[in-house]
């Protein structure tokens, strides 16, 4: 008898989720190409002229002098890691979702599916945050690398959860991809970045965008010795909210209304 083996469904979904990411050649190429292209572009093109950067510690602010290249590198790293996390979440929560609806019909618990999928998602966000921190640490000196990692981890979790939500709700892959590229680049890459947008540090609206608190956490950890409790708690709130939203839409989609073509579309 051919051995197809057996196992606990939670572990199997987790293992298969990791294999899915590993077997996605485009995902592996993007993992190398996108950071290299974007960070490399900033490295080669950004000026080394100094610029005063305002870091927000709650109601207090501190101004520090950084080169435009340093500022650009942090924001572009945030945008790149946010986009990649959202892209991988899109793979985990959009592609072949009908298959898991069928598994749910066969008895797979929606909670177990979400937990296993989410564990794979957290794994990839941790890897992305670590890669981004290492790349940034190689290029520029980081005051407290572990807190920089925490900042990037928040960015990847927040944007990853956002990508997952877009993926679950979208019927087509390409529009979903455009949504995540647009928000990640618009928020972290441009609106937060004073090198490209002079109003970045003056508008209160920008403080409400998802990348604001994690970027403040990265800057305060990378270039100051002060703890930034406001940025940490703000990031935590964003992460909890976006992850809760992701879990809610996944649960709804697993048990919710049917697709136009059939129950497992």
């Amino acid at each position, binding site marked *: 008898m051919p051995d197809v083996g057996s196992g606990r*469904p939670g572990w199997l979904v987790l293992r298969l989720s990791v294999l899915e990411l590993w077997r996605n050649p485009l995902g592996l190429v993007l993992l190398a190409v996108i950071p290299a292209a974007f960070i490399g572009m900033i490295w080669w093109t950004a000026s080394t002229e100094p610029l005063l950067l305002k870091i927000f510690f709650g109601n207090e602010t501190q101004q520090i002098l950084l080169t435009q290249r340093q500022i650009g590198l942090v924001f572009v790293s945030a945008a790149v890691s946010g986009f990649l996390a959202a892209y991988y979440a899109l793979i985990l929560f959009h592609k*072949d979702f009908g298959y898991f609806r069928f598994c749910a019909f066969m008895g797979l618990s929606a909670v177990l599916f979400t937990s296993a999928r989410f564990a794979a998602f957290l794994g990839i966000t941790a890897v992305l945050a670590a890669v981004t921190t290492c790349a940034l640490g190689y290029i520029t000196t980081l005051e407290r690398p572990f807190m920089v990692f925490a900042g990037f981890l928040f960015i990847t979790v927040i944007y990853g959860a956002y990508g997952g939500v877009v993926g679950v709700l979208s019927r087509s892959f390409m529009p979903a991809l455009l949504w995540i590229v647009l928000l990640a680049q618009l928020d972290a890459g441009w609106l937060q970045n004073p090198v490209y947008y002079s109003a970045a540090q003056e508008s209160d609206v920008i403080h409400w965008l998802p990348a604001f608190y994690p970027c403040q956490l990265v800057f305060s950890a990378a270039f100051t010795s002060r703890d930034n409790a406001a940025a940490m708690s703000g990031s935590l709130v964003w992460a909890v909210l976006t992850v809760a939203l992701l879990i809610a839409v996944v649960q709804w989609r697993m048990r919710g209304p049917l697709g136009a073509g059939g129950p497992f579309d």
Partner: protein
Amino acid sequence: MSHPPDARIRPASAAAQALANAEQGQTCSPLCSCVDLHLSYGRHCVLDGCDLLVSSREVVGLTGENGSGKSTLVKCLLGFLRPSAGHVHCDPRVGYCPQENYLHRSYTVAEHLRLISSLRDADEPVDAGYLGHCIATLKLDRYLAYPIRKLSGGTYQKVKLLTAIAHRPALLVLDEPTDGFDWTMYLVFWDLMAELVGRGTGVLMISHLLHDRERFDRIYDLREGKLHA
């Protein structure tokens, strides 16, 4: 199959009576039934008072033109759609082979079977011997390590069928299950059905084109929202 020839054809409205009889223990236990089922999409009435019954050891066909509402009826029976009115009963130990190509393209056949086998482990564990027998009968042995995206249409259909029968369900609902099968595999399919029915499974098979009508205990034809036997 289990009924004499004269019992094969009976009016669809008799399904309600058959259900009542079954509930009184006069026939095989009903696995799936609906009585006076209605479903409308807005003003468009899709199902207009359908009665259907599938009992243990029965092979029941459901046919109808494209767009007649066969799949909608099945979705109501399986609980994917809530009917506007009527009563539905369906055994939870159901195996379903849908028409859609839902299998995960990144997984191999073995990985898919491993995951499917792990589900319902507590109440309906997969019999490894039976699964191996089905894999061999469907000639899927050499495809176990294949990624599903590389399977041909017929082999893909075999994996879908195997998925539906792996747990040896009490009720088997098959939507166009023989699409893409060659003649030999078509006969193998009926052998597998005979094995399952012999062990008590009830089969509901949906197709817009049913051959071999003598293989069925009963055939329902869905026309203008009503079932005709």
